[in-house]
């Protein structure tokens, strides 16, 4: 039982890291980024290529991929999101869906359809916590997720740009009225969200197998966490992630394993019935 709960919490951290980029883009810009999963996969593939080419440890690439994806985020915002951001939400939805397909096709062209894994001496290692073997990589991912979420929380609540992001998230019109340069805030938000995606992709690529359409799995999980924790709520992400992780793990003790997704989505439905905004969401974020 302890091992199951421990694993549930750890995988919850992985899910949280996965969902963070999606949540921030939605929270501030109201864009549902369906290209989220493929972007995570892209970061994984880039890590795979650099690691196998230069024979370096993938951990070194964390800051590099962060910067690279920050740049990509700015570029995507300026060229794709900015022209349509004031349009109907359906337009941005279709746009990001298309972006996702383009990235998947790009992966298929550049890396081919073969399965890819990033193997390091410490992948699949385990450490012993209270006499229970737990995955070393997942522990690292959990800690990293925790660190990044705390960092984001500080940025949002203590810095000027962070407060501007929160303002845009709470009331876009109000933010414009008090003189916030909404365009700059969106640009920064997209950049920083993509950076988080880049970091998440680098780490997650080390615990899964990469193939061109692996991203679909990520989009689904991230979306579920986003809704559970509260749409666009950064602080809700770890809660959503851990609830999802625990629901999957604990249900498998009592029920057939096949039902764990069903249980996770049942909880999602129940939460939506009781609190339509998710745990930490605000009605204005819907």
């Amino acid at each position: 039982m302890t091992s199951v709960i421990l694993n549930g919490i750890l995988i919850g951290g992985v899910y949280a890291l996965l969902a963070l980029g999606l949540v921030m883009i939605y929270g501030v810009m109201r864009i549902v980024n369906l290209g989220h999963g493929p972007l995570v996969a892209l970061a994984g593939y880039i890590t795979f290529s650099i690691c196998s080419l230069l024979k370096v440890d993938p951990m070194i690439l964390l800051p590099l991929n962060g910067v690279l994806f920050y740049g990509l985020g700015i570029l995507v915002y300026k060229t794709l999101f900015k022209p349509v951001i004031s349009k109907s939400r359906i337009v941005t939805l279709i746009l990001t869906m298309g972006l996702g397909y383009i990235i998947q096709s790009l992966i298929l062209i550049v890396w081919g359809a073969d399965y890819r894994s990033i193997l390091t001496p410490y992948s699949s290692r385990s450490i012993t916590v209270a006499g229970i073997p737990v995955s070393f990589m997942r522990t690292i991912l959990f800690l990293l997720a925790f660190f990044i979420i705390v960092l984001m929380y500080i940025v949002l609540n203590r810095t000027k740009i962070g407060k501007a992001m929160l303002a845009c998230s709470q009331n876009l019109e109000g933010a414009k009225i008090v003189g916030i340069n909404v365009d700059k805030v969106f640009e920064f938000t997209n950049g920083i969200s993509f950076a988080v995606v880049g970091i998440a992709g680098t780490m997650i690529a080390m615990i899964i197998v990469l193939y061109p359409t692996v991203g679909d799995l990520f989009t689904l999980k991230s979306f579920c966490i986003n809704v559970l924790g509260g749409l666009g709520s950064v602080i809700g992400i770890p809660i959503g992630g851990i609830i999802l992780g625990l629901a999957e793990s604990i249900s498998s003790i009592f029920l057939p394993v096949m039902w764990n997704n069903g249980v996770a989505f049942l909880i999602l439905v129940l939460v939506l019935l009781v609190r339509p905004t998710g745990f930490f969401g605000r009605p204005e974020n819907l």
Partner: protein
Amino acid sequence: MKKALVMLLVVALLAGAFGFAPARAGNIVIQMTIGSTKAYVNSKEVILDQPPVIENGRTLVPFRFIGEAIGAKIDWDPVKKAVSYILEDTKIILIIGSTTAFVNGVATRLDVAPKILSGRTMVPVRFISETIGAKVDWDSKTRMVTVTVSVKEKAPVKIGAAIALTGKYATSGQYYKMAWDLAVDEINSEGGINGRKIQLILIDDQSNPTNTANAYTKLIQENGVIATFGPFTTDCTVPAANIVEKFKVPMLSAGSATAALYQRGYKYYFGVFPPTDAYIPPIMETFNSLKDEVKTIAISYESTDWGKELSSKLKDAFTNAGFKVVVCEERENGGMDYTPLLTKIKSLAPDAYLDAGHTTDEILLARQSKEIKFNPKIWYGGLTADYNFLKNIGAKDAEGVMGSIAYSSNAHTQGNRQFVDAFKKRYNVDDVEYHAGIAYAAAQVLFDALKRAGNNLSPEAIRNAIAQTDMETVIGRVKFDNTGKNMYSFMPLVQIQNGKYEVISPSTVATAHIEFPKPAWGR
């Protein structure tokens, strides 16, 4: 370009009949000199038994030589003393000593009768050539006859398939395309099917059964394919088989291992992929030999038709043989975290663990087994014998893992060496993935059947030719029973030992002894 290629092929085919390499693309040019045994076909020298002669101002040449040179089917009737040529829709019959010849049954007068010289039948070259539409030139100075046959492009033999080129099974789908492209190019460079090139039309179904059904309908109704290869995965194969059955177009499947497909009474569906039944005997042979040490067994399986079928057959076989199956759990197909499943199974402490699943899941199952230190004495993953498993796990962690495999690049099957070499060279890869091997075998069987069906390439004739197949392929012998199943289906049990796949069962083809118990992960 296309035309030139076809000509090249025809010339190559003709040249092959004479035992030399093709000279150049274009028309067939035959040169003979009166009184000389030296003749030339496309500038390549051929020695004649009997030199051409002139009779009443007409040149007579050896019957067999000119027939083979122009690419005609030749025949000799000793009773009627008649020789005949068949080239496409023209049939010419000549009778020795008679000036009456028959072209498609119509009597035609010759200036000079065919005759026998030194045991060789000599026929008038101008008559033969002009009847089949070839051009004849006479050079009185060098006394040389030149026959130029222009080769018409023949309509290609169209075959088709829907296969996953994008989507969740694109990885495996690509291997099918690679193998089929190679097989098609090989047969076309050898002259195709009776001189007709094979044209393979592939449609990407993205592993979506609705797309698959639409794709086969389109292939048959719009593209007019006369035979098909099957798609990948059972989920897509079922609708595809229903479509080809409805239109009565044969299908050679290399993409479904489900045995239930053969119980549906299909007449046009044939499969070379070993069905789930084939997995069981080698597994049981190994387990029965370890009865003292292995008593409890845990099984998990992916949520697909194939996974369900294989796991239930395994469960039945183990139960009947006196083993205790402690759990048989269905699991998600293509998930991220199998730790809950593995933790549950670990808590039951089985002696052996078997999973019926595909490669990506097997990779994650193996890694996550290692992470939670789940170390049963036997760890079997249905498709871990795919080389992608070893590549994505590393030899150290893969040590002792077992799986089943339908094709192996180092198997000593007929033609396998050449296939593996050609595949590696063409695609610049270091090994041949097993789906590619099975796909290639399907192509071998279909092309062999097309050749045997001869000039009558109706779907019905092709179907009958496939049904009569009994041949050696890269996956071993193929012969279909009346349900369309390969009765020599073969699925050996392999184990990864020192970074290599070794066959451990059946003992008749084993390459190594079993490593038992499996060492702990990473040891």
